[in-house]
C-alpha cells in the first residue's frame, strides 16, 4: 500500500486543481477575516464558504479523479495487488490531499484569527466534510461506468446535501409545526453531514444564542463532550458507509 500511495499522492499534489483549490480557500478565508470587523463574523463567512465549496470540490474532484484513474487501476489489477488495496490507497491519497488542501487553505487563517475551540471544530468538521464527500464520490464513480453520468450523480449528491435536504427539513418544520418535533428534527438534521458540521460550528460561535430553544436542544444532544464524540462518530459513519459500499462494488467490478 505505501508504494501505491506514494505515487497517488505525488500525482495529486502535482494536480493543478488541488493547488488552485488550496489557493482559492486561502484567498476566501484571508479576505473574510480581513473584511469582517470581528473574528466571529469572519468565522461565519468562512463557514459559509467551507460548507459550500468543500463538499462541492471534494465530490467533483474525487469523481473525476477516480474516472481518470481507470488506467492506473487497470495497470495495477494485472499485477499481484489486492483490489481492495488499490481502492483504499486511492481513497487515502485523495482524502489526505483534500484535507491537506483544506488545512493549508482555510486552516491557517482560522487558527490565527479565531479562538482555539472554534478553530478546532471548524478544522475537524471541514476535514470530515472533505473525506465524506470523497467517499460519496467513490460511490458515485463505482456505480456508473460512464464518466459524465458519474459526475452528474455526484453533483446531484452535493445538491441534495447542500440544498434539498435543508428544504426537506424546512418542509417538515412547516408540516409538523403544531407538534413538538424539535427533537426529531434535531436528529434528522444530524443525517446530513453538512448540516451537522454547520450546527456544530455555530454552537461554538456567539450567534448560537440566536438559535433559541432548538439550538439549546441541539446543544444538549451534540454540544457536550459525549455529544461531540457522537457527532464525530456520525461523521465517521458518513465516511465508512459510502466507502465500504463502494469498496464492495469495486471488488466485484469488471474492468
Amino acid at each position, binding site marked *: 500500500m505505501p508504494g501505491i500511495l506514494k505515487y497517488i499522492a505525488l500525482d495529486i499534489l502535482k494536480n493543478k486543481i488541488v493547488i488552485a483549490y488550496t489557493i482559492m480557500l486561502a484567498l476566501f478565508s484571508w479576505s473574510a477575516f480581513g473584511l469582517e470587523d470581528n473574528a466571529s463574523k469572519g468565522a461565519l463567512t468562512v463557514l459559509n464558504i467551507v460548507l459550500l465549496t468543500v463538499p462541492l470540490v471534494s465530490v467533483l474532484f474525487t469523481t473525476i479523479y477516480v474516472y481518470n*484513474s481507470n*488506467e*492506473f487501476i487497470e*495497470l495495477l489489477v*494485472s499485477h*499481484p495487488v489486492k483490489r481492495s488495496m488499490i481502492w483504499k490507497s486511492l481513497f487515502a491519497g485523495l482524502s489526505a490531499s483534500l484535507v491537506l488542501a483544506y488545512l493549508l487553505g482555510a486552516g491557517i487563517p482560522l487558527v490565527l484569527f479565531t479562538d482555539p475551540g472554534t478553530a478546532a471544530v471548524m478544522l475537524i468538521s471541514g476535514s470530515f466534510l472533505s473525506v465524506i464527500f470523497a467517499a460519496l464520490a467513490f460511490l458515485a464513480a463505482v456505480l456508473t461506468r460512464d464518466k459524465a453520468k458519474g459526475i452528474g450523480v455526484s453533483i446531484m449528491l452535493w445538491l441534495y446535501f447542500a440544498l434539498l435536504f435543508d428544504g426537506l427539513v424546512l418542509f417538515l418544520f412547516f408540516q409538523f409545526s403544531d407538534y413538538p418535533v424539535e427533537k426529531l428534527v434535531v436528529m434528522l438534521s444530524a443525517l446530513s453531514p453538512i448540516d451537522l458540521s454547520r450546527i456544530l460550528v455555530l454552537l461554538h460561535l456567539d450567534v448560537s444564542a440566536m438559535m433559541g430553544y432548538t439550538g439549546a436542544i441541539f446543544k444538549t444532544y451534540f454540544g457536550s463532550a459525549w455529544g461531540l464524540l457522537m457527532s464525530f462518530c456520525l461523521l465517521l459513519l458518513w465516511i465508512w458507509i459510502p466507502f465500504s459500499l463502494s469498496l464492495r462494488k469495486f471488488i466485484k467490478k*469488471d474492468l
Partner: protein
Amino acid sequence: MITIRHISKSFGKLKALNNISLQLDPGECIALIGPNGCGKTTLIKSILAMVLPDEGSIFFDGKDIRNDNLYRARIGYMPQIGRYPENMTIGQVIDMVAGIRSSSALPDMELYEEFGISRLLDKRMRTLSGGTTQKVSATLAFMFRPQVLILDEPTAGLDPLAAGILKDKIIKSGQEGCLTLITSHLLSELEDLITQLIFMQDGSLVLHKDVEELKNLTGQDTVAKSVLQLLKSGEIGVEL
C-alpha cells in the same frame, strides 16, 4: 498450469463467454484467435481476474484464483492498448510496478535495453506514442520473469524492428518453459511462434488443437492456410 472450467460471462444481453473449459500447459505458446467481439479479451481478463466470470472457475496451478492475487505475480500481461496514469513518467511506472511485485529475482532487462527505455525514463506517459507505450507494456510484461505470458495483440502498433525484437523474446521465453497466450489478428505473424491454436466465436470455444495436428488434419503447411481451409469447409462458421 491454467485450468478453466465452464466459465460464462455476460455483459447485459451479450454473452461474452459461453461455458468455456480449457487446459493450458507450461511450455506451450498458444494463439487465441477469433473474429472481433468473440470474447478473446474477456477470456484473458478473466484469467487475470480483471473480469469476474458469472459461472465456473479458473485454477492456476490447481488453486482457484478467486480470492487470490498472488498468482498474478507469475503472470506477465501486455494489454492491447496500454493505459497508464498520464502524469507518471515511464521511470515511475516501472519503479512502482517493481515495488508492487517486490520480486527478489533479478529483473529481466533484455527488452528494457533493446527498446532503449532508459533514454525515455523521464517522459510522461501521456506524451508517448502508441508504439512507445506498447514497448513499455512489453518491457513490463517480461521484466519480472513470469511463468505465464499473456499478450493481447502484442505487435499491433510496433514498428517492424521492435516487433522482431519482441517476437524473438517470446520465442526465447517459450524455450525457457513459459506458457504464452497470444491474441492476434495476423496469424501469419504468429506462424513460427505457436504450438497450439484456440479459436473462439461468439463467446464459445470452437477449436483447441496442436498446430501440427491441425496442419495434418487440413493438409496445409501453414497455420493460416489451415484455418482458412477449416473456414471454407464450414467447420468454422464465419470468415476471419
